[in-house]
C-alpha cells in the first residue's frame, strides 16, 4: 500500500487540518461468511472530498457501510470524528449517508420523505420544514417535492436521496455512487455542491466509477482492490509513489526534436515521443524532479520556446490503471 501525506499535512500552510477530527479505520476487516469484504484497512481520513475508487466488489460500499454502522467489522475498530458507529444516535447527528439502495418508504412524496425522517431525528415541525425546504432547494427538487417519490425518474430519486442525506446539515457526508443516473447538468450542480461541502471543511466521502469526475472533485483518493486499500492520499502523491511506472510529462515547445535528443542523454528518460502536430513531446521518465531541472537548463542553453509543461498521467485514471489495471471495468 502506498501511504502518502494528505492535504494539509506536514509543511503545508493548512497543517492544522491534521489535528481536526478524522474518520479512522484501525485494522478493520469484514468478512461475509467465507467471502472477504475488506481486509486490514487502516485509514485516517481528513476533512475534504475523499473518493473511494475501485472495481466492483473491491470493498467500496462495505467500507461506507462500516463507516455508517450499517454493518459491523469482523475485526478492528472504526471511529468517525470520535464516535464509534455502534452509536447511531450520536453518529447520525453528524453524518448523512446517501446509499446505493434505490428504494423508498411507500406512499410518501419527496417532501414528506425528507420531512418525516427529520422528525424522526426529533426535530420540531417548523425546524424540520425549514430544513426540508432548504435541502430540496439545494438539489433543485422544490418543484417536484409534492409528487410521490414512486413517480420520480432515476435521476430525481437520486437527488431526493441526496437531499435526505444533507437535510440535517451533516459534517460527514457519505455518498455511494451519488452521480448515478444524473444528467450532465445535474452532475455539475451536484459536484459543485460536494465541492462547497469540502471547502467548508466537512468530510465528503464519495465512491464513483467515473474516474474523470473523481479527478475533478477529489482532494484525496483511496484506491481499493479485492478488499484491500492499495493506495491513499492526494492523487499526484500517489502517482509519484508508483515507481515502477515512469511518469509521463507533456512538453509543448517549438523544437521537440532537439529537446528529445538532449533528453535521451539522460538515463532516467525512458521514452520521448514527438507529438503528431510536431509541436510537443511526450516524455516518460523515472525521475520527474530531475527532468524538470534538466528542462530548465536545456531551454536556456538552446533558446527553446516552451508553451507548457504538464504531467500527463497523474490523474486517477492512470493511477488506477497502474495499480489496479482494467480488471474491474471501471470507466
Amino acid at each position, binding site marked *: 500500500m502506498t501511504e502518502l501525506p494528505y492535504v494539509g499535512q506536514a509543511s503545508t500552510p493548512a497543517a492544522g487540518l491534521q489535528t481536526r477530527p478524522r474518520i479512522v479505520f484501525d485494522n478493520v476487516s469484514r468478512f*461475509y461468511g467465507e467471502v472477504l469484504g475488506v481486509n486490514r484497512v487502516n485509514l485516517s481520513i481528513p476533512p475534504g472530498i475523499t473518493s473511494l475508487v475501485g472495481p466492483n466488489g473491491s470493498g467500496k460500499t462495505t467500507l461506507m*457501510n462500516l463507516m*455508517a*454502522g*450499517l*454493518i*459491523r467489522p469482523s475485526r478492528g475498530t472504526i471511529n468517525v470524528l470520535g464516535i464509534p458507529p455502534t452509536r*447511531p*444516535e*450520536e*453518529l*447520525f*447527528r453528524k*453524518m*448523512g*449517508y446517501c*446509499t446505493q*439502495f434505490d*428504494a*423508498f*418508504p*411507500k*406512499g410518501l412524496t419527496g417532501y414528506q420523505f425528507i420531512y*418525516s*425522517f427529520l*422528525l*424522526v*431525528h*426529533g*426535530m*420540531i415541525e417548523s*425546524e424540520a420544514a425549514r430544513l426540508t425546504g432548504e435541502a430540496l432547494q439545494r438539489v433543485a427538487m422544490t418543484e417536484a417535492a409534492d409528487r410521490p417519490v414512486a413517480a420520480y425518474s432515476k435521476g430525481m430519486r437520486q437527488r431526493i436521496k441526496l437531499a*435526505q442525506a444533507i437535510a*440535517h446539515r451533516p459534517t460527514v457526508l457519505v455518498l455511494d455512487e451519488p452521480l448515478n443516473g444524473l444528467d450532465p447538468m445535474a452532475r455539475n450542480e451536484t459536484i459543485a455542491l460536494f465541492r462547497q461541502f469540502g471547502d467548508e471543511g466537512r468530510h465528503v466521502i464519495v465512491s464513483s466509477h467515473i474516474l474523470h469526475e473523481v479527478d475533478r472533485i477529489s482532494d484525496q483518493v483511496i484506491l481499493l482492490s479485492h478488499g484491500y486499500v492499495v493506495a491513499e492520499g492526494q492523487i499526484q502523491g500517489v502517482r509519484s509513489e508508483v515507481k515502477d511506472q515512469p511518469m509521463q510529462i507533456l512538453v509543448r515547445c517549438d523544437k521537440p526534436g532537439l529537446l528529445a535528443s538532449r533528453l535521451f542523454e539522460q538515463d532516467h528518460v525512458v521514452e520521448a515521443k514527438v507529438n503528431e502536430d510536431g509541436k510537443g513531446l511526450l516524455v516518460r521518465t523515472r525521475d520527474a524532479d530531475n527532468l524538470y531541472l534538466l528542462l530548465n537548463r536545456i531551454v536556456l542553453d538552446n533558446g527553446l520556446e516552451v508553451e507548457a509543461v504538464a504531467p500527463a498521467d497523474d490523474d486517477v485514471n492512470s493511477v488506477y490503471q497502474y495499480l489496479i489495471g482494467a480488471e474491474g471495468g471501471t470507466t
Partner: protein
Amino acid sequence: MTWSQIATQPWMLWRRQVASILRLELKKSLFSKRAWWIYILTLGPVLITGLHSLLSGRIERGHTMGEDNMIFAGMFQVYFLRLGIFFGCLGIFSNLFRAEVLERTLHYYFMSPVRREVLAVSKYLAGLIAAVVYFVGSVVLSFLFISAHWGPVFQQYLFHGPGLAQLGWYALTAALACVGYGSVFLLTGVMFRNPMIPAAVVFVWENLNPFLPSVLKKFSVIFYLKSLCPVGEIPTEGPLAFLATMTEPTPAWLAIPGLLIVSALVLALAAAKARKLEVSYSD
C-alpha cells in the same frame, strides 16, 4: 426549541422520536396490502356473528342467549386466542423489521440518530395499536353481533347484567394477547431471517398447552390469557381429551402483571437484538 436543545433532554427527544416513528409505522401497519389476510382474520368472525344475528332474528330461534354466550366463549378461546390473534400478531409484528428488509428501506431508520431501542419500542407500539384496533375491535363487534338479535333482553344483559363486564374482560384479554404475542413475534422477526420456523414452534407449544403438565403450562401466553376469560375454560374435546390436564387458573392480579412483565422482558431482548442488527439486503 431547536433540535440541539431537544437533544440535550433525552426523554423529550425519545418522546418526539417515538411519536414520529409511530406516525410512519401506523400507516404501514394499519393500511398495508401485505395485511390483507389480517383483515380477513378480523372480519371473519364479525361477518359470521353478524350473519348469525341476522338469520336468528328472521327465523325461529332454536337456542338461548346463554348458548350464544357459550358459543362466543368458545369462539374467543379457540379462534381469537389460538388462531386469529396468534397469526395476526405474527403477521404484524414479525414484519415490523422483516418487511423493511424485504423492501430495502430499513436503512433509513438505521441512518437516523435514533437509539435502536427507541426504534424497536416505537415499532412495537405501532404494531400493538394496529393489532388492538383490529382484534379488540373484532372481539367487541363479534360479542355485540352474536346476541344482538335478542334485542331488549340483550340490552338488559349488557347494561344491567354482567354483559358489559364480560365484554370488558374479553377486550382486555384480547389486548393482552396482542401485547404478549406481539413481543414474541417482534423478537422472532428481529432474530430470524425466516420467522415462520420459530412461529411454528411457538404455535405448537401454545396449542399443546392443555396436554402439558401443570408446571409447563405456566410457560405459555395462552395459559394466562385463558385465566382471564370471563367464561371458564372450554373443555378439551376429541380423541385426545383424556390427555388434557386441569390446572387451577391464575388469578387476574397475577396473570395481568405477569404477562406484562414477561412481554416487557421479551421486548427488551428484541430491542437489544435490534441494536446489533445489520443492514444486509442481499442476504
